[in-house]
C-alpha cells in the first residue's frame, strides 16, 4: 500500500530488464513480460489516483531517504491523472501494436519491447518525481529511448530524423539542466516542494529569473512549441507505428505537465504572474503556435505529417491556456493534457491500422477507406470530431474551458485562434473523409453523375481484431471522459489549483 508510487515506475524498469534478458534466451516471452509490466504499472497508477482523489497528496521518499537528501516522489491529483493516462496508453498500445510490430520489425521485436518499457519508465518517472535533478535524468531516459525507437522506423529517414531529434533534444534538456544548476546555486536545494517555500523571498533575484527562463525554454523545446517544433513532424512520421502511437500522445503532453508543474508547484503562480510580465507574450506565442500548426497541417499530403502538425497546434492550446492567468485557463490546459493524449492516441491507432493494411498513408492513397475499413474509420472519425471539438467528445470540453478562460482574461486573439483552429481542423479532416468516402479504391475518380447501380460491394479488409478492439476502447473513452469532464475538473483539477 505504501510503495505504489514506486511500483508505477519500477515495474516497467524490471520488465525492461527481463525483456532484455529474454531477448537472448527465449524471445517469445518478451511480449508477455512487457504486457505484464505495463499492466502492473497501470494498476498501481489507478490505485494511486483513487487514493489521492480521496486523501490528498502522497509524498513518497525513495529508499526511505528524506528530502532534501533523498529523492521524493510527490503524487497529487495532477500527477495521478497524468500517470493513469501514461500507463493506460502504454498498456493498451502494447496490446494494439503487436501486429504492427511483427509486421515492421519481426527480428528485433524483443529489443523493441525492452526499449518501450524504458520509455515508459522515463515518462512515469517524469510525471511522478518531486526532485528537479531527477526530473532531468528521467527526461533524458525518455529521450534516449525515443531516439533509438524512432531510428527503428522508416529505413531511409528514420535514423536521420532521430539524429536531428537528438541534437535538438540535447539542447533542450541541457538548458533545463543549466536552469536547475542556477536554482541550486541560489538555494542549495533540488527538491521542488522545498524550493517552493523559498521562492517568496527570492523573487527579485536575477539568478532565479535566469533559472526560470532556462528551464522553461528547455521544456518548450521538448514539447515542440512553435517555433521550436521543427524536430517533431519528421520524428513522429518516420517512427515505427508501435512507437508513434505512444510517443505522439504522451511525450509532448508530459512536457506540458512539466511546464504546469514548474508553474504551479515550483515557481508558484504568484511569482509567475505577478512578478514576471511574460504571460501576455506567451499567450501570443500560443496563439501563433495554434495558427501556424493549423496552416502547416493544411499543406501536408501525408496523413502522419498532418497529424504531427496538429499536435503542434494542440501544444499551442495548452501553453496559451496555461499562461492566460486565470483558473479557467489552467483548468482547460490541464484537462487538455488528458483529452489530447486520448484523442491523439485514438488517431494514431486508426492511422496505424491504415499503415498495417496500406503501407503508405499519403492522403491520396486512402481511397474508399470507409468501405474497406469501416471500423477503423469509425474510430478515426470519432477522434477527428474530438480534435475539432464536437460535443459530446472530450475535445469540446477542454476547448470550452480554454475559450471561457480566454474571454475572462480578455485574450480575444487566443479565443479567435481556438475557434479558427477548430474550423481548420474540420477542413483538414473532411478533406481526408472526402477521399475515403467519395473515391472508389484502386480505380479512377468518380466522374459521372448517376452512379446508381454501379457501386460494387467492396470487401472489408480490416486491421487485426486486437487493434480494432483497442481503437474501440479509445473511441468510447473519448465520449466517456467528455461526459465526466465536470467530475474530473471538480475532483482532480480544482483541488490542485486551490492549494
Amino acid at each position, binding site marked *: 500500500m505504501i510503495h505504489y508510487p514506486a511500483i508505477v515506475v519500477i515495474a516497467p524498469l524490471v520488465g525492461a530488464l527481463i525483456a532484455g534478458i529474454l531477448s537472448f534466451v527465449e524471445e517469445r516471452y518478451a511480449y508477455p513480460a512487457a504486457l505484464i509490466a505495463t499492466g502492473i504499472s497501470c494498476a498501481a497508477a489507478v490505485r494511486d489516483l483513487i487514493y489521492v482523489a480521496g486523501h490528498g497528496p502522497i509524498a513518497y521518499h525513495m529508499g526511505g531517504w528524506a528530502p532534501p537528501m533523498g529523492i521524493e516522489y510527490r503524487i497529487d491529483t495532477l500527477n495521478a491523472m497524468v500517470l493513469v493516462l501514461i500507463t493506460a496508453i502504454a498498456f493498451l498500445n502494447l496490446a494494439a501494436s503487436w501486429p504492427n510490430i511483427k509486421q515492421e520489425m519481426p527480428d528485433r521485436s524483443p529489443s523493441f519491447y525492452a526499449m518501450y518499457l524504458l520509455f515508459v519508465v522515463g515518462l512515469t518517472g517524469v510525471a511522478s518525481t518531486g526532485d528537479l535533478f531527477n526530473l532531468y535524468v528521467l527526461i533524458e531516459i525518455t529521450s534516449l529511448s525515443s531516439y533509438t525507437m524512432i531510428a527503428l522506423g522508416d529505413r531511409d529517414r528514420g535514423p536521420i530524423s532521430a539524429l536531428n531529434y537528438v541534437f535538438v533534444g540535447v539542447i533542450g534538456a541541457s538548458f533545463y539542466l543549466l536552469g536547475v544548476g542556477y536554482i541550486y546555486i541560489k538555494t542549495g536545494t533540488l527538491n521542488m516542494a522545498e524550493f517552493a517555500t523559498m521562492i517568496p523571498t527570492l523573487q527579485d533575484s536575477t539568478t532565479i529569473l535566469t533559472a526560470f527562463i532556462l528551464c522553461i525554454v528547455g521544456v518548450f523545446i521538448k514539447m515542440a512549441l512553435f517555433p521550436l517544433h521543427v524536430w517533431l513532424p519528421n520524428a513522429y512520421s518516420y517512427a515505427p507505428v508501435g512507437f508513434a502511437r505512444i510517443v505522439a500522445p504522451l511525450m509532448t503532453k508530459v512536457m506540458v505537465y512539466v511546464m504546469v508543474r514548474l508553474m504551479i508547484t515550483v515557481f508558484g503562480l504568484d511569482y509567475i504572474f505577478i512578478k514576471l510580465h511574460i504571460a501576455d507574450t506567451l499567450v501570443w506565442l500560443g496563439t501563433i503556435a495554434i495558427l501556424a500548426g493549423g496552416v502547416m497541417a493544411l499543406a501536408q499530403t501525408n496523413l502522419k505529417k498532418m497529424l504531427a502538425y496538429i499536435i503542434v497546434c494542440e501544444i499551442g492550446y495548452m501553453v496559451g491556456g496555461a499562461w492566460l492567468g486565470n483558473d479557467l485557463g489552467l483548468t482547460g490546459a490541464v484537462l487538455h493534457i488528458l483529452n489530447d493524449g486520448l484523442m491523439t492516441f485514438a488517431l494514431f491507432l486508426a492511422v496505424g491500422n491504415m499503415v498495417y493494411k496500406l503501407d503508405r498513408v499519403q492522403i491520396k492513397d486512402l481511397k474508399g477507406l470507409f468501405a474497406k475499413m469501416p471500423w477503423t474509420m469509425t474510430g478515426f472519425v470519432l477522434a477527428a*470530431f474530438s480534435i*475539432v*471539438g*464536437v*460535443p*459530446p467528445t472530450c475535445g469540446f*470540453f477542454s476547448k*470550452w*474551458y480554454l*475559450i*471561457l478562460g480566454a*474571454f*475572462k482574461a480578455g485574450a480575444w486573439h487566443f*479565443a479567435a485562434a481556438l*475557434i479558427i483552429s*477548430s*474550423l481548420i481542423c*474540420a477542413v483538414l479532416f*473532411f478533406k481526408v473523409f*472526402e477521399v475515403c*468516402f*467519395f473515391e472508389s479504391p484502386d480505380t479512377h*475518380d*468518380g*466522374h*459521372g*453523375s*448517376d*452512379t*446508381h*447501380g454501379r*457501386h460494387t460491394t467492396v470487401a472489408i479488409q480490416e486491421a487485426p481484431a486486437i487493434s480494432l478492439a483497442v481503437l474501440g476502447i479509445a473511441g468510447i473513452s473519448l465520449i466517456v471522459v467528455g*461526459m*465526466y*469532464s*465536470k467530475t474530473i*475538473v471538480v475532483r482532480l483539477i480544482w483541488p490542485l489549483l486551490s492549494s
Partner: protein
Amino acid sequence: MEFIQSIKPILAVLIPLAVIPVLVSSGGRPNVREAWTFIAGILSFALVVSMVPAVLDGNRIGLTLFPIAPGADIALSVDALGMLFALVASSLYIITAMYSIGYMRGLNEHSQTRFVAFFALAISATIGAAFSANLITLYLFYEILSLATYPLVTHHQDEKSKVSGRRYLTFILGTSIGLVLPAMIWCYHATGTLEFSAAGIFTGQLSTPSATVLLLMFVFGFAKAGIMPVHTWLPAAMVAPTPVSALLHAVAVVKVGVFSIIRVLTGIFGVELLSSLGLGGLVAFIASVTILTSSAIALSQDEFKRRLAYSTIGQLSYIVLGAALLSPKGMTGGILHITMHAFGKITLFFCAGAIYVATGKKYLSQMVGIGYRMPVTMTAFLIGAMSIIGLPPTGGFISKWYLVLGTLEGDQAVMLFVLLTSSLLNAAYFMPIFYKAFFCTQAEAMFERKFDEAPVMCVVPLVITALISFIFFFVPQPFLKLSTLAVTGFTGG
C-alpha cells in the same frame, strides 16, 4: 406548473439511437431492417405522445444528464415548444420510413443500411434538440445532427455530392463553430448560465451594441434556419435522395435551425429585452428580405426540388418573422407554422420523389400533363401547395392567419405587406405546376393518359400527409394549443 423528473425524454432520444446496431446487423435482410426502423419510430412517437397530457397541463418533464460546468449541464426538458417540434419530427419519421422503403427500393439504391442507420441517428439528434433544456445541450444535438446528415446528403458519392457536401459542411459546421460557439460561451461568460428561462438570462449585462452583435451571431450562426446569406447549403443539399430532402430538409434539419433561433430569442434574450432594445425589428427585417428574395428566386427554378428548396427557405423565415414580431399572435403563428409547413412541404417533396421514381423526371418543364398519369400524387401536391400558400381549407391557412393577426397586433404594417406579397409569390410558383399537370392539350402532354402511379409505398405516405394538412384546418390540435401555451410561457402570461 411543476417540473416532473422522468426518463421518458431521454428514452425517446435513445430509442432511434439504440436501434442502429440492430439495423446494421440486419443489413442483409432488408425486411427485418425496415421492420426495426418502424418499431423504433413507433416507440419513440408513442413516448413523445405519452408526455403530451402533462405538457398541456402546463408542466415540464425533464432530467439532468450530466454536468459540464456550474450552470451548464446536459439536460433535457420537455415544454410546449419542444413538444410541438418533437411530435412533428417523430410522427413524420414513421411516415418517411415508409416512403423511403418505396423510394430506395424503387430506384434500387446502394448502401441502404448505411442510409437507414444515419437516418435514425439524425432523428435521435432532432428529438434531442427538441427536448434540450439549455443552450449547450441544444448545441450538442445541433452538431450531432449536422454530422449525421452529411453521409445522407452525400449518399450518392459522386462528384456533385462531393461539391454539395462541401458546401453543406462549410455553411452549417462553419457557422456553428465560428459563430454559435463563441456566442454561447460569451453568454455563459456574461451570465454564468445557459438555461432557457422564461424572461431570458440577461439581467442588464448587455449593452445595445453587444446585444445586437450577439443576436446576429446567433441568427446567422444557426445556418440551418436558412436565413440569407447563409442559406446556400439548402439548394445544394437537394442532391440527396428525396427522403433525405423530405424529412431532413423540410422537417428535421431546417426546423432545428428555426427552433434554435426561437429558443435563443425567447429563452436566452427574452421577449422583454428584445422589444426594449428594438432588436425584434432587426430580425424581422432580415427575415423579410429572405422571404421575398427566396420566393422570387423560386420562380426561376426549373428543377422541382430546387424550387421546393427555395420555397422552404422562404417559409422558414416566416417562422423566424413570426417569432421576431414579439407579439403573442405573431409568435403563435410562427410556432404553429413549424407544424403546418412541415406537413405541407413534406407532401410536396414526397410528390417530387414519387414523380422521379415513376418517370425519372426531375425538371418541371418535363412534367407537362403528368396529372393524368399520376392524379393521386398531383392532387396531394395541390393540397400541400395550398397549405404552403396559406389557402383554406388547409392547415397552412391557420398559421398564416395568426401571423397576419400578429402584424396587426404589433402595428407592423410593413410586415403585413411582406406576408401578403410573399403569399402571392408562393401562388405564382406553385399554381402553374398544378395547372400544367392537368390542364394542357393532348399535343403538349408528355405522358400518356394512362394511370401509372409511383409504387404504393411512395403514394400512401404522401396521401397521409396531404390528408393531415387538410384535417389541420378543422382540427389544428394539439399543435395550436401547444403553440399558445408556449407563447404564454414566453410573454409571462
